[in-house]
């Protein structure tokens, strides 16, 4: 019982933090930075507890007498929680300058963000489909509001409306799918679908498959995969920088937490029926995302569209899981971490520049000669772009390497070839920025490196990316990139069947 209370502490802390900030936001005298620091403090304590839990937990149902088997705590959920919490902490700290430069942020912003993180953490812990649906909705409904937080910009409000309408329409498919699955299986627990499929191999399972595909529709929509990707660019451009960062990195990881759980266990008996669909979706995501990314003139739009392409790589690995690759699932987790670091840094630099100077540094042309104006920032941006493009010596290269390896392992050479081709195409839009930064004269004089939490963290993230790429062999005692892969596969082993 005491151990259970200890396991639930991180979630409870995030929720208490949300309540605290909600009440605290009534006090008008408090500065915005203090709200930010309080939020970060709650998240950090939660993160530390999660790190300790990760060492000690195997596979546990929390409060089994009260919650039955709905609340699962295993290494996978803890690993994902660590990612959400560190993502949120980095997002908040990197955007510290940006919060101060805009007048529309207040205490409720942080409360809503914490509610959203609570939903994501619950999503990683859930072992039951209705709880999963409610957690997805909790994470998204608060995000809808955050997307429209900038009330000066009509674009932000438009993005919010678009996201609300499309997002709730997509969410409905999940609950419809759950209803159909419940009709056949008679239970909404994750493992029960697997055991039903194993024990009823001769009976007609078409309704079950239809229901599961409806659930996939929602999950694919939320990560922005191909037929459902049209909202991504508009919503990402319209929302404020911190929210874009949060959606591009943390929300995507959250959806993958439930997607992996469903796909690895419950979808396993029906792989032959659905793999073709996953393959088509992955290829379409790669191609359409690349087309969108090439066409963008704004840097934020380019990063948004390229996030669709990165989802395509992960769907490729999802296909590889079904064909029988042994380490595709850990490759997905590794890729999530590598993409999360690179995108966080790239959006962080944009948000820092947007907070520094009004209405600048949004399109490609604004970056002409940027390296002569701010050499350190340009170097960090170069590292992020190299990592996103998958250039060797960055963590992004290793992420792509593992994904392609897992696809090649299953014998799907053509699919892996397409992935490599798309990676070459992505060099065009990532390296365009590097070329613009270095090969043009700067219209402005050189500026000093501004020492602040935001900038130091951006440099730190850039160093982490390089360390993840080349540092593995240099430091034998610390877990490097390969260590991350081991941790991921260790966590995946704890999913009970």
């Amino acid at each position, binding site marked *: 019982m005491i151990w259970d209370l200890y396991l639930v502490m991180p979630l409870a802390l995030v*929720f208490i933090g*949300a309540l605290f900030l*909600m009440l605290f936001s009534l006090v008008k005298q408090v500065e915005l930075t203090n709200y930010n620091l309080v939020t970060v403090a709650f998240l950090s304590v939660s993160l530390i507890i999660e790190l300790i839990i990760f060492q000690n937990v195997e596979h546990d149902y929390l409060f089994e007498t*009260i*919650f*039955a088997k*709905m*609340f699962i705590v295993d290494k996978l959920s803890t690993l994902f929680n660590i990612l959400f919490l560190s993502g949120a902490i980095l997002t908040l700290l990197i955007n510290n300058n940006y919060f101060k430069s805009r007048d*529309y942020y207040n205490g*409720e912003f942080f*409360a*809503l963000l914490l*509610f*959203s993180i*609570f*939903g994501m953490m*619950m999503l990683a812990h859930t072992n*039951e489909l*209705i*709880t999963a649906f*409610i*957690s997805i*909705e*909790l994470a998204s*409904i*608060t995000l*809808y*509001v955050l997307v*429209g*937080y900038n*009330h000066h910009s009509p674009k932000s409000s438009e993005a919010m409306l678009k996201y609300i309408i499309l997002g709730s329409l997509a969410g409905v498919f999940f609950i419809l799918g759950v209803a*159909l699955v419940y*009709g*056949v*299986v*008679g239970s909404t627990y994750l493992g029960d679908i697997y055991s039903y499929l194993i024990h*009823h191999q001769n*009976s*007609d399972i*078409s*309704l*079950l*498959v*239809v229901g599961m595909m409806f659930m996939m529709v929602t999950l694919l929509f939320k990560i922005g995969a191909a037929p459902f990707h049209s909202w991504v660019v508009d919503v990402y451009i319209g929302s404020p920088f911190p929210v874009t960062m949060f959606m591009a990195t943390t929300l995507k990881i959250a959806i993958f937490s439930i997607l992996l759980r469903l796909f690895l266990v419950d979808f396993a008996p029906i792989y032959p029926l659905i793999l073709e669909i996953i393959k088509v979706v992955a290829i379409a995501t790669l191609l359409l995302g690349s087309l969108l990314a090439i066409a963008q003139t704004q840097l934020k739009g380019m990063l948004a569209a390229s996030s669709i392409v990165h989802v395509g790589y992960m769907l490729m690995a999802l296909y590889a899981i079904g064909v029988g690759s042994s380490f595709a699932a850990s490759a997905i987790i590794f890729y999530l971490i590598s993409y999360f670091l690179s995108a966080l840094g790239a959006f962080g630099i944009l948000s820092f520049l947007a907070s520094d100077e009004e209405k600048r540094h949004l399109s490609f042309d604004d970056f002409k000669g940027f390296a002569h104006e701010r050499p350190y920032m340009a170097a960090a941006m170069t590292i992020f772009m190299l990592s996103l493009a998958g250039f060797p010596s960055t963590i992004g290269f290793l992420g792509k390497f593992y994904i392609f390896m897992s696809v090649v392992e299953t014998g799907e050479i053509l699919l892996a070839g397409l992935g490599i081709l798309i990676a070459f195409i992505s060099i065009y839009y990532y390296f365009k920025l590097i070329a613009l930064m270095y090969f043009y004269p700067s219209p402005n004089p050189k500026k000093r490196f501004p020492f602040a939490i935001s900038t130091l963290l951006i440099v730190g993230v850039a160093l982490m990316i390089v360390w993840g790429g080349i540092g593995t062999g240099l430091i034998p005692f610390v877990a490097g990139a390969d260590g991350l892969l081991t941790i991921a596969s260790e966590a995946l082993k704890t999913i009970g069947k």
Partner: protein
Amino acid sequence: MESIIFFILAFFLLSGAIMIVFSKESLYSAIGFLMVMIAMAGMFALLHHSFLFLAQILVGVGAVVVLSIMIILSINLKEENQPKQNITRKNILFTTLIIAPIAGLLLYAIAKAPFAFAPIAQHFGTIETMGKVLFTHWVLPFEIVSILLLGAMVGAIVLSRRRLHVES
């Protein structure tokens, strides 16, 4: 007898749904919505689920529909202020062609599915059994729903307050 009531309710449900989509005045759409909600409550009553019937009438009809009608009346929605919708025959035909296979697949799957339900117990659907089920077996989702409502409430307050802020 039951099937006659079912078909009457289904008729109202579908005609209300068609009314929502096709009527040009928003108020008529809202009244179509009201029809759908009441017919839905009737469906629950037909299934002996008295709790859901009550909840549907109280929440669906009493709160959701009334609120939407109040909003339509208070902001004086007129047809000329609305964005143009081109509901042409071609669009309807095209959408039907897209939706028809999915609907056919669902129909086929439901017709062939081996449903795994026990025959209903004696106190099925009463408030007492619903309360017991919600607070024992489903207590975790039930509690998270309350957190969801709290988050949604904070969000709604933030959104509505900023509008006042803009006007002042």
